[in-house]
């Protein structure tokens, strides 16, 4: 692997980036002004629009057994009853009971309407204390999709103008020009040229008709150039006809994370149109958890029709290449046991489990699985953009501790992850907890195990 960013460079970038991320709340425009009645009406409108037959059946199947609490890292770590996942759906349930349930005629007189105070109290429950990881879905005896319904709650909060300032700032920025953390086209080009210089071959840009489009994210552009660089180096090594694009490089979607559905749709639509204009067959989304479901499952919804390209995440694309023999990796000796973190949005919400494991096996790693793995994996603690919320700092550390506890119990001395925000949260968690376990990008690991081969077209000679 060619080193595209040194450890020192990364640490400096990390310190600068962390400082910037910590202050974005102060930069946000003031929250939208509206009357209390308007806030309640807007939230209710979102709830009512989101309740279909499936949601109604699931809400009517809840037994209040509390099993979901025992799957939630925030409850496990604090024992605070208010973090019980199903409690986070109480407002939705109220609206359903009063307005849409087959028994609404009977329940309405006994079910008070939601108030603006309810909405304000809900903010902490559906942002700070829930990363929509969906682990609670996996334990519920009625299999209620609590994770998705918390997402509906975030949409209701955003519509009511109550999304946290940090997420409003991120959303406003991306709504305006499609970029995050100021990673505009100039910065993207700077990073690509930087990687190009270090890798020593030309990185194709805006190549129409290429087989594969590789996307990146603001986080990788600023911080984790090794992830983007690793993916580029591997694609080049495999001889894949790939490209990056100035009009479709940002994989992150802060409309999706913050609950602004119109922004989510707009961003996905923009990327989809740019991808279709390029005519690529496959899109590789970056090591950025939510960017996978946002495009893989969101593109067709945003366009209102099926789309004609495949979407894969980095670990999925390269893992499959390893599995079907298109990518040979060099097995090396790794004395330290490694743990794999399955990012929730890619794993539990995306089904990508075997591919990263095959990659690690091909690299010769001694993988120590955490007790909760694959679809039962614990979140890093800072998913769904929570890593940006200072108000969630305590809870993030709680989530990190639960996760890290399993990693330590597995005897792992190294951690690999294929998601930038998980990586960010682990890095911050380590600093706060005084831990020192190295956290690596899977894409960078792949690149580090590429066997030496003869010069391919485009290499510097």
């Amino acid at each position, binding site marked *: 692997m060619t080193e595209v960013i040194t450890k020192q460079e990364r640490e400096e970038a990390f310190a600068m980036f962390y400082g910037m991320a910590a202050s974005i709340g102060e930069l946000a425009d003031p929250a939208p002004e509206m009357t209390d009645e308007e806030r309640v009406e807007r939230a209710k409108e979102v709830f009512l629009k989101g*309740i*279909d*037959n*499936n949601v*109604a*059946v*699931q809400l*009517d*199947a*809840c*037994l*209040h*057994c*509390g*099993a979901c609490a*025992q*799957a939630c890292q925030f*409850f*496990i770590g604090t*024992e605070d*009853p*208010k973090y*019980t996942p*199903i*409690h986070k759906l109480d407002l939705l349930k109220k609206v359903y009971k009063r307005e*849409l*349930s*087959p*028994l609404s005629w*009977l329940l309405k007189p006994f079910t008070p309407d939601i108030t603006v105070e309810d909405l304000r109290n809900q903010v902490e429950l559906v942002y700070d204390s829930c990363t929509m990881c969906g682990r609670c*879905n*996996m*334990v*519920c*005896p*009625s*299999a*209620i*999709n609590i994770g*998705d319904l918390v997402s509906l709650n975030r949409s209701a909060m955003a519509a009511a103008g109550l999304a946290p300032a940090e997420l409003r700032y991120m959303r406003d920025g991306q709504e305006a020009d499609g970029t995050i953390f100021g990673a505009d086209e100039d910065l993207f080009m700077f990073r690509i040229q930087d990687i190009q210089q270090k890798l020593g071959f030309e990185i194709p840009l805006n190549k129409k008709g290429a087989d594969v489009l590789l996307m990146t994210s603001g986080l990788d552009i600023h911080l984790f150039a090794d992830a983007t660089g690793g993916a580029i180096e591997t694609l080049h090594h495999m001889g894949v006809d790939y490209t990056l694009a100035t009009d479709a490089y940002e994989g992150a979607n802060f409309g999706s994370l913050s609950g602004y559905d119109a922004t989510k749709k707009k961003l996905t639509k923009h990327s989809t149109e740019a991808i279709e204009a390029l005519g690529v067959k496959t899109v590789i989304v970056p090591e950025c958890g939510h960017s996978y*479901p946002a495009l*893989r*499952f969101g*593109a*067709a*919804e945003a*366009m209102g*029709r*099926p*789309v004609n390209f495949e979407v894969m995440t980095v670990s999925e694309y390269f893992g499959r290449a390893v599995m079907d023999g298109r990518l040979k990796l060099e097995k090396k000796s790794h004395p330290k046991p490694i743990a794999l973190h399955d990012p929730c949005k890619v*794993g*539990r*919400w*995306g*089904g*990508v489990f075997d591919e990263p494991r095959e990659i690690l096996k091909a690299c010769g790693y001694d993988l120590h699985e955490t*007790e*909760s793995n694959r*679809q*039962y994996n614990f979140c890093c603690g800072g998913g769904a953009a929570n890593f940006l919320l200072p108000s969630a700092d305590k809870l993030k550390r709680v989530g990190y501790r639960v996760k890290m506890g399993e990693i330590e119990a597995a005897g792992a001395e190294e951690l690999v992850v294929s998601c930038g925000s998980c990586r960010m949260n682990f890095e911050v968690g380590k600093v706060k907890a005084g831990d020192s376990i190295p956290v690596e990008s899977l894409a960078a690991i792949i690149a580090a195990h590429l066997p030496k081969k003869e010069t391919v077209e485009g290499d510097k000679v």
Partner: protein
Amino acid sequence: MTLLEFARGPALQWAAVIFVIGMLWRTLGLLLMLRSRPLSKDRKKGLAGAGVKTMFSRFLLPKVFAKRVGFQYLLGWIWHVGFVLTVFFFQVHVMFFKGLVGFGWPALPNSVVLPVAAVSLGILVILLVRRMTNPMLRYISNFNDYSSVIVTILPFATGFATFTHIGVLPYETLLALHFLSVALLLVWFPFSKLFHVITVLPSRYILGVKFWRRGVEA
């Protein structure tokens, strides 16, 4: 009309009518609601099969949750099995149903059903006390949760009292109270969380399909 005549006559009959209409109303109301359909391509085939699988796999607890949820899962299992055995396989109940539908089925000996019913009743009481004393459960519980357990306990308690003739009340009164408690259960059923009898399997199916679309066994 004596209390017993009222209990096993109009009270039970009207309760049954309310039960049937209520269950149909709520079920049809749910069925008639619109459904959104995803447009994106599925990652896996065989969605219906996966949905059915989840309907049954959720009867078992994934090993990773055993430490924290195993006890309540076990109680839930024993209680539900005990309920079915007591209601449908207690000799007196089988005779009652035979009178109602015209045919019967083999009953379990009293020596089996009575301990089963006692255990079920005990578990219900434990679940109620647990709900009242566990801070998390107490926090999330509402009237529906408490009343549903109490309304379910009553037929068991009155049934035991009737069978064993325990208490100061005459047998006929105890039997009437048993019928009335069953009537209350029937009336309460469609309007409470006891309705999960209808929704729990479809709910599991929904998640099973949703996750299998994404390639995940739920």
